[in-house]
């Protein structure tokens, strides 16, 4: 790192080409991001893209990706939207919690909490 940071906003919107909204369907804070593939011509990727693709080899929620990149959520989402458009990650469709938690998961969660 040399010299002064030109200012966080300049840098942040540089990452997204000035966009504040991600491409394609919107996704939730806890939607799960999973890396599909890492391109063979990495020169076209910015470091943040690489960081996401490395992190999300293990399925990772969006909020964790933002914290890991130390970037605001909406900037993170634009980056994730781009990666999804390129077919490099999948982002699972948010589902209402009540529909995703069956009896088995419910028991698991309660047991997990109690044994913390």
């Amino acid at each position, binding site marked *: 790192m040399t010299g002064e940071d030109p200012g966080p906003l300049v840098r942040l919107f540089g990452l997204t080409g000035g966009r504040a909204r991600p491409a394609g369907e919107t996704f939730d804070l806890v939607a*799960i991001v999973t890396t599909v593939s890492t391109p063979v011509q990495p020169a076209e990727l910015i470091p943040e893209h690489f960081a996401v693709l490395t992190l999300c080899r293990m399925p990772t929620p969006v909020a964790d990706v933002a914290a890991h990149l130390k970037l605001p959520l909406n900037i993170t989402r634009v980056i994730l939207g781009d990666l999804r458009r390129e077919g490099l990650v999948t982002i699972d469709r948010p589902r209402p*919690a*009540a529909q995703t*938690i069956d009896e088995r998961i419910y028991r*698991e969660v309660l047991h997990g*909490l109690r044994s*913390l």
Partner: protein
Amino acid sequence: MGYAASEPDTTEAASALAIKILIAGGFGVGKTTMVGTISEIRPLHTEELLSERGVGVDDISGVESKITTTVALDFGRITIREGLWLYLFGTPGQDRFWFMWDELAVGALGAVVLADTRRLQECFPAVDYFEQRGIPFVVAVNCFDGARRHDPDKVRRALGLGGVAPIVLCDVRDRESVKDVLTTLITYAVEGVSKD
């Protein structure tokens, strides 16, 4: 591209799942402390950049230029097992960030409304919010040092709550106490009944 069309019949036992729980309540009531007490990691911090659209609800008369500001968002994580997590999101305490709640609340399993009996009115907006949207919530009365212990029934009456949402006394600094609040919420949200 992206993902296949959803097929409800398909069993996806192996898919990862992050369960979202909101921690709401007035400013300084102990939301961040509660997240920190139970989270396996130091609460993570991220920010949301707000354009003038979001700030417009605030009183910024006289300010004409576009404004970008940020709202801090702290959250914690509890790993139940690989691929199954609980995420606790502290909601922004300031009224002008209400619009962010809508996004936070999407798909949430439920919410903890933290209350301080010395300033009970500060949790009214959160109670109203979750009631109107049909999001299950419990009211957790944080028993600060020196704060008088209150009868949960009195708190219920003061809040104008029906007989359904559980009310628990807690100490947000105490791990067992926070676990108790969360298990009460999850049981209530899943079974639709109070644990007790």
